[in-house]
């Protein structure tokens, strides 16, 4: 899932080229490719206690309507995630949703049991979910972009609008909190 730093996506450029030449249905390829990332952004803000459908529709609608205005087409991913981030910030202000991670019951429904936590394959999933619940949504998104999506701090700035220096400090502080809480 993660893409290397600063690697422009030539596939995206070709698809956007098709869209701007009238093949509007080509946009579904971008939706298919990036809808999971948009979901993760929404999840980072709100956790499980929200229906992501409306926000996702709005995010992709904004992207669809404005795609012809995108100058650096190779940076479509960052641009899309910025739209998603802004939509989540707006939704958070409007709805005051608090982040809600997975409970023990939720995990049990998924066949994950805390007693198995020490099993290597289950351990990392539970740790990631539960640890990140301790962070603010903004910090959680930065950590995800930095350590999972391998984004550079300049890309994090492009997505969140948080300066590179501020994002670096937030990431450092968040990772320190997680290190202190991690039980591994």
């Amino acid at each position: 899932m993660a893409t290397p730093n600063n690697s422009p996506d030539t596939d995206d450029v070709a698809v956007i080229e098709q869209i701007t030449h009238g093949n509007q249905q080509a946009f579904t390829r971008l939706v298919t490719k990036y809808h999971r990332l948009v979901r993760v952004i929404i999840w980072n803000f709100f956790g499980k206690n929200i229906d992501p459908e409306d926000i996702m529709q709005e995010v992709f609608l904004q992207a669809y309507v404005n795609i012809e205005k995108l100058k650096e087409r190779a940076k479509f991913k960052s641009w899309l995630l910025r739209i998603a981030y802004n939509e989540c910030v707006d939704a958070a202000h409007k709805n005051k949703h608090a982040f809600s991670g997975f409970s023990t019951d939720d995990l049990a429904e998924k066949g994950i049991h805390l007693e198995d936590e020490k099993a290597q394959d289950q351990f990392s999933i539970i740790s990631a979910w539960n640890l990140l619940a301790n962070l603010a949504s903004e910090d959680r998104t930065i950590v995800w972009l930095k350590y999972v999506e391998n984004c550079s701090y300049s890309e994090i700035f492009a997505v969140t609008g948080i300066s590179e220096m501020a994002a670096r400090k937030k990431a450092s502080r968040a990772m320190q909190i997680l290190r202190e809480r991690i039980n591994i």
Partner: protein
Amino acid sequence: MKCSDIKDLFSQHADTDSDLTKNPDFVRHISECVQCRSDYEKHIRLIQALKKGFNDFTPWPDQQFKFKFPAHQTQKESVADIISRFIMSSWKPAATLAFACIILLLFYSGSPEAPVFDFYLKTGKLSDVAAKTQTYGGKLSSSTFIADVESQICYNLSNSSGSPSYFQSKVAPGSQFITGKHEITLEAGALWITHHDAPLKIAIPGARINIIGTEFLLATHEKASLIRLIDGKIELIDSKGVVEIKSGKNYLYTKEQGTFIDISESLQTTWDTLASSPATAFEPLRPTTDRQVPVQKQTPDKSPDQPTNGSFTPPPETFAPASETVNMDENPSESTFDNNQEFNNPVEGLGN
């Protein structure tokens, strides 16, 4: 190097831990400091946990997402756009399309534009513009006729090798019409038509009607036309395009406005009204200031003693309130047509 410096390095090089191990000061410190070594190991495991956790994680996995294109955007791509994109995509489809177009062009260039009709007078009495009276059975030439009495016309296809195709019709006395090769033009008066065969076109001043398996009434008077569709469907073609209407609808067309207006709610008309005096059907539609004082509805005069001098004389106007109208949906097409001069009223026995 102090322990605080080591923690700063975690954040600066966290995503490329190999860089840390290449730093001799860092390596020396963690080899000596148990706490920092433990922190570093946690840091590495944390990053691995986050990567694995998120890479295996799809939020709301049970919910399928399908982007809904906005309505106005889905229509943005016109047929021309699709064809253009198809042509631009590669030369092979373009060549195929061009070849298909040539074949179609060659095929249609040898076909007639529209069927050519021969119109006949079946019953009644018509006069042409030269005041030459034509009685039943005669073929109608392409000229202007006036119905002396209620009459019936029909057609067959001149290029048809099979049995003649007929349509049943009534032409109100005093009506003026033109028979052409492809259509009938109603200049004034009223027509009742049932039609279930080849596509027949009716023209009225300023507009046209395509008939597609239909029974309908048509009246024209002073640059305005009334259409009542009893059964089937017709296409109304005016300056703004083509509108397909279905049974039970009344439409008004005025040459001034250049378009058909649905007046189904405000007006009902019948063949009796139209046949007795087409102008009466328009009376309720006149502006109030122009409307005459209502008078008692006149009994339709079916006498054949209509003007036969070749000049069209509109019948005397009478006022027929909509409430007094008769339901035409009693299937007048079932009325019989015989070859005598008597006109079989399609709504005989109803109303009035």
